């Protein structure tokens, strides 16, 4: 019902606007001078337009009134509330614009643009300000001392900023150390035998803060043919199981894409891809970057399998995880 009323109101408004536009498109008054004086003032005195505006305002009032009703009756249906308030505001908008164009006097005025810089006034201001320093002989000393006081005060005021941080040493730390067991996001420890070729697992450190940046690991198992680790890392991947930091060394997103060849002769080698900027890393080659903006390899965590068959970290990370910075420890390769 109210939608119909709104439609009607819009139609009437559109017709009024069209008529007025038609009235205005008659040829303008003829003058041969090119430099016409554009000043004019027209008083429309249109009862019809006034009626349209009044109608629009009344429908707007209906819409606005509907808002509290909907709020109470439907306990806040987002769509209805939006239509009620948005509709009321749009109707008000149309009412204002119609009133501004067809109800109130239409005037084209000319205003002079004065100069911004008025020489005498500016000079007077300069003189007034400089007169404030009349009779002062040790001007340089005063200015210098004032500057020193100001700078010292600013430094003092800015000092507490230092207590916000920084704690740079923490940037080199992760929860991983020799013996920490790999668990899933519900705390269940990973058995080495559970790690299947072709899948990718997210691991967290058992009993440590899962929210810390270095906590997340990517764990995959690769057939021997895909593993080409540097000599120093030969025993980091027991039974072909490899673990890498899940945090992209480019911009800190968690890497969540893993591709594994479905048909080896034509598919590409297994790789991790970060969904933010698509840096692509080879798990078989120590996390080497083969595409995308990452400036260093994905940090690898040495693994071991304990007597019960669970996966554990064999050591700390040998380099820093997370995005690069001035003091980042890079891998020795």
């Amino acid at each position, binding site marked *: 019902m109210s939608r119909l009323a709104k439609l009607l109101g819009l139609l009437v408004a559109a017709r009024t606007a069209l008529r007025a536009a038609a009235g205005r498109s008659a040829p303008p008054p003829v*003058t041969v001078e*090119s430099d016409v004086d*554009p000043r004019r003032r027209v008083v429309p005195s249109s009862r019809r337009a006034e009626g349209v505006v009044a109608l629009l305002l009344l429908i707007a009032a209906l819409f606005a009134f509907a808002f509290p009703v909907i709020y109470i009756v439907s*306990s*806040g249906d*987002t*769509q*209805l509330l*939006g*239509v009620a*308030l*948005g509709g*009321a*505001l*749009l*109707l008000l*908008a*149309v009412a*204002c*614009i119609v*009133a*501004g*164009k067809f109800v*109130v*006097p*239409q005037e084209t*005025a*000319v*205003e002079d*643009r004065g*100069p*911004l810089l008025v020489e005498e006034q500016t000079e007077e201001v300069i003189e007034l300000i400089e007169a404030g320093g009349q009779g002062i002989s040790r001007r340089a000393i005063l200015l210098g001392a004032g500057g020193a006081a100001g700078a010292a005060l600013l430094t003092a005021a800015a000092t507490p*900023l*230092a207590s*916000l*941080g*920084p*704690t*740079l040493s*923490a*940037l080199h*730390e992760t929860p991983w150390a020799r013996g920490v067991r790999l668990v899933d*996001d519900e705390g269940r420890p990973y058995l080495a035998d559970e790690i299947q070729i072709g899948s990718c697992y997210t691991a967290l450190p058992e009993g440590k803060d899962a929210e810390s940046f270095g906590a*997340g690991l990517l764990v995959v198992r690769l057939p021997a043919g895909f593993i080409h680790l540097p000599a120093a890392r030969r025993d980091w991947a027991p039974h072909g199981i490899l673990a890498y930091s899940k945090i992209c060394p480019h*911009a*800190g*997103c*968690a890497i969540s894409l893993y591709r594994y060849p479905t048909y080896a002769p034509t598919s590409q080698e297994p790789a991790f891809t*970060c969904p*933010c*900027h698509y840096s692509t890393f080879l798990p078989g080659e120590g996390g080497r*970057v083969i*595409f*995308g903006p990452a400036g260093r390899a994905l940090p690898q965590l040495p693994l071991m399998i304990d007597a019960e068959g669970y996966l554990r970290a064999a050591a700390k990370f040998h380099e820093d995880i*997370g*995005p*690069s*910075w001035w*003091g980042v420890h*890079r891998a020795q390769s």
Partner: protein
Amino acid sequence: MNVVERYAHRRFERASRTAEQRVGMAAGIRWALRYVFPDHWSFLLGEIALYSFMVLVGTGIFLTLYYVPSDAQVVYHGSYPLLQGTQMSEAYRSVLGLSLNVPAGLLFRQVHHWAADVFIGAIVLHLVRVFFTGAYRKPRDLNYFIGLTMLMLAILEGFAGYSLGDDLLSGMGLAIAYSVAMSIPFVGGQLATLIWGGPFPGSNTFLARLEIVHVLLIPVALAGLITIHLTIIMRQHHSQFPGPGRRERNVVGTPMWPAYALRSIGLLFAVAGVLFLLGGLIQINPIWQWGPYHPYLSENGAQPDWYIGWLIGALRLMPNWELVIAGRTVIPNPFWGGAAFPLVVFGVLFAWPAIERRITRDARRHDLLDRPRDRPIRTAVGAAFLSWVVIVFAVGSTDRIFYRLGIPYTTQIHVWRVGVWVIPLVVFFATRSACRSLQRSGAHPLRAWEGNVVRRRPDGGLEVLGDSPDRIVPPATEAPVGTVPGQE
């Protein structure tokens, strides 16, 4: 006048006198009521930004009443079944509650989000208008710098806002922001840990810090700059396009009272109305679908709000260069796309008025706007620069293009790494020649109709009465105010 009107008139008169006896501002009010606004649709873009800001403040106040800036981990037991029993931060839980359990909460949050997108969009379009019409020239260069500063603040403000939710999308955005902060040469580590209160995801004070930045520091700065921006405009008067009777020394248009005020208030309501319809009917940032953020989680196909797209694009497009000297990472990779690129873009924009003054040796005051075609070099430089930024922006959605159209991601990146330099050159020459041919053809004259006025004679023939009285004043027929460069 009937009785009621006479009574209202008397009351109004008395109220005016009562107020005047205390504030004495009649002269100022008179000046404001007669203030002349030149009419052109493109002048409304700045007003749309202003009105979006008002909607942002209003809806934002509502949202702050519910937001809890805490990263404390809690288990969700709210009304949304799919997240039952999920571990999440208190901040995320508060935004979920605000969206799903507070009546009209989702409406206000979605209106707020839409308003932010419209706000920055209107500022950018306003900037484009100002650039291509030469409105940044003296005396408006100062106001142009203020506008650019507000654009930077607005982008930062929008980013801070959608980062507060601590959903998966906002957490990923913060991780990238942290990495960009870390990548600043020499001091990045200190700076980032200073802001975050420690290594990412930061100390438990971080969300409170971000909230104060979002709800107090930047909004107050924006409100102050808006006030200065408008005060300077009022002092200088609006610029205007050339047209009948329009001169460097005057301003022709509609006075503030009553017609312009009504139309502008109408625009305020229209902006607010459209934003409320958008917020009510078109879903935006459904955080319950993203889930809570944990540093070890991410989602695929994540796209930020549009005004961050150019930074994502730059980060994606950049080859993996990282400057390492003696084991020290001097320039980590995110610096190029996340910091250097926006610095270059804003640096060029800030420097442009001075560059143009130096090239044209024109330091005079300009109050008449240029048509883009009449300044082919400026227009071509602007179009090329714009295309450069827009290409980088488009690269931000290469993964969506891959998903929708199947063009391999790597191919797109390799093509755009070349295209981002070649296409702006093509755009430069194409725009310059288009401007020149438009100038020659004289097609689409500015705000006027072309042709002759004719009248039918009694014998049935037509007689020509003269040119169009709306004939435009060709540019440069009137010298700008002041004749000595550098002076008014």
